[in-house]
């Protein structure tokens, strides 16, 4: 029987020819990365195992990205402890300021098609852009994987999502992500794998694709795989079994916003236009790549954000900052009134930068908009960079096609 990409990756790492959805297998792990939000408990748990050694330090990375550079005294202590653990066990630590874990893992080329990649960030699924099985785990499981190099996985059902067409002006892959989330809802794809196909995804770069695969986590998926060019990459068999195939034409898509409460609350921007905002934000592994900053700069160049509004930008990697500095994007944004934070998760969860007071409203490229995510009583609309920049100019949610 034919197998999907995900089934082939699980089979190859479980040492079997064929797997079926619902089976549970022990699979070997190619890369594990642990960040500073889940790291402190992971190293506590690892320390409980008498005399434990790390199974293969070359396959482990520590990345300080959630509270970085140390945003509180407590975070500084956690960073000290993580540094000491990494040094003791010969693990490479990617230090504060380099950026958000999976964005950095992508930039550094640490993943290959067909691999099993685990991260303590839920948005690890974003790395499926490289044709691997990348998924998130918690602290204790990360401690166990550091010790054994293995993890149990249930073979997921796979759904095929075909994206065809060319985007209209001022509409971006992030709008496509919000469309998919609205279509499938917050848990319809729980435990499942997505395989993306179609001429639209074929034409996207890895970072643009990350805006889509990263947000797939918000539909509950275990992994989200994009097609890649490497000849040795696992490919689905012609007779692979999918639970369903869903096709979208992105050619008629409008800019989207997800209204406060759930990332799946997407509506065309028109129904939210005019909503007053106090903050606009570019941030996160799904919305602060170079292309996001460049899009905002194009809209804001030579203009100034609305009076009384703050525009907080937290690039997701140091290379984004370097490139934006080189091309003039950074100065265009700063001259327009933006605040630039150091590369980190930052505003996405109100990690001590860009927080909201009760009653305040923010429009943001970040990943989530649950109640209180940027501060108790604050409301978050999720959108693409163009919509955020147009709204920053207007002081209210605005349609980027009219900016």
């Amino acid at each position: 029987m034919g197998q999907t990409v995900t089934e082939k990756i699980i089979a190859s790492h479980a040492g079997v020819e064929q797997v079926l959805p619902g089976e549970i297998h022990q699979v070997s792990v190619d890369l594990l990365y642990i960040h500073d939000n889940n790291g402190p408990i992971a190293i506590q748990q690892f320390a409980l195992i008498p005399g434990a050694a790390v199974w293969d330090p070359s396959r482990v990375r520590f990345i300080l990205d959630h509270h970085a550079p140390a945003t509180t005294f407590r975070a500084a202590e956690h960073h000290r402890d993580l540094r000491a653990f990494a040094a003791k066990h010969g693990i490479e630590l990617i230090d504060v300021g380099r950026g958000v874990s999976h964005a950095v893992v992508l930039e550094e080329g640490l993943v290959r098609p067909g691999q099993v990649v685990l991260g303590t960030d839920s948005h690890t699924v974003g790395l499926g852009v490289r044709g691997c099985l990348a998924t998130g785990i918690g602290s204790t499981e990360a401690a166990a994987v550091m010790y054994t190099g293995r993890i149990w996985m249930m073979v997921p059902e796979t759904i095929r999502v075909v994206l065809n067409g060319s985007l209209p002006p001022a509409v971006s892959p992030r709008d496509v992500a919000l469309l998919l989330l609205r279509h499938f809802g917050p848990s319809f794809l729980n435990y499942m794998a997505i395989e993306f196909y179609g001429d639209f995804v074929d034409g996207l770069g890895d970072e643009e694709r990350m805006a889509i695969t990263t947000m797939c986590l918000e539909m509950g998926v275990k992994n989200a795989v994009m097609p890649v060019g490497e000849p040795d990459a696992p490919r689905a068999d012609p007779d692979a079994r999918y639970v369903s195939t869903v096709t979208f034409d992105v050619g008629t898509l409008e800019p989207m916003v997800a209204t406060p409460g759930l990332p799946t609350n997407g509506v065309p921007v028109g129904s939210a236009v005019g909503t007053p905002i106090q903050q606009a934000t570019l941030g996160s592994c799904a919305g602060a790549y170079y292309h996001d900053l460049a899009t905002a700069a194009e809209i804001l160049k030579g203009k100034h954000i609305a009076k009384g509004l703050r525009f907080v930008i937290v690039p997701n990697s140091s290379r984004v900052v370097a490139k934006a500095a080189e091309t003039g994007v950074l100065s265009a944004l700063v001259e327009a009134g933006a605040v630039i934070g150091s590369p980190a998760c930052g505003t996405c969860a109100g990690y001590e930068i860009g927080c909201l007071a009760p009653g305040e409203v923010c429009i943001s490229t970040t990943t989530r908009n649950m109640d209180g995510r940027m501060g108790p009583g604050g409301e978050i609309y999720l959108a693409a960079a163009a919509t955020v920049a147009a709204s920053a100019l207007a002081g209210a949610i605005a349609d980027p096609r009219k900016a």
Partner: protein
Amino acid sequence: MESMQYRGRVWKYQDNVSTDHILPSRFMTQVEPAELAAHCMAGIDPEFAAEVRPGDILAAGYNLGYGSSREQAPRALLHSGIKVVVARTFARIFYRNCYNIGLPAVVCPEFLDRVSGMDEVEVDLAAGVIRNLSLGESHSFVKPPAFLLDYVRAGGLIPHLISVSGN
């Protein structure tokens, strides 16, 4: 060694209770049990941390534990004294995190159709039965795989790993 039989009062919540609701990001650098317990459910129910009693059971609708991978969320529940979580469905990472820390996670829609907050409930994990003592009803659920029951018996994944590796 856990008996895997639990009895307590029910705290009932809606669909899509996220880990951000269970333990908001602003508490994320806190990792000690008492700290986590003090802020448990701060994003959705400010009364919970003060009112919860050891042995209580948390019940919710679809997609419990949505969102962030933060293990601090199920740990906050565990350290608050919650012994079992019951839902219509669980978010994937949250489900794994629960068993990894020795907190049983049970799927039982029939029970959730009928239960009210503060009902007295008994869960027999090994038998796959949940009894609503307040209503005098009993519901069966699909037992988790045997190896996850082993995690619960041992008190979590790490104690289980230590016991099987002969340390």
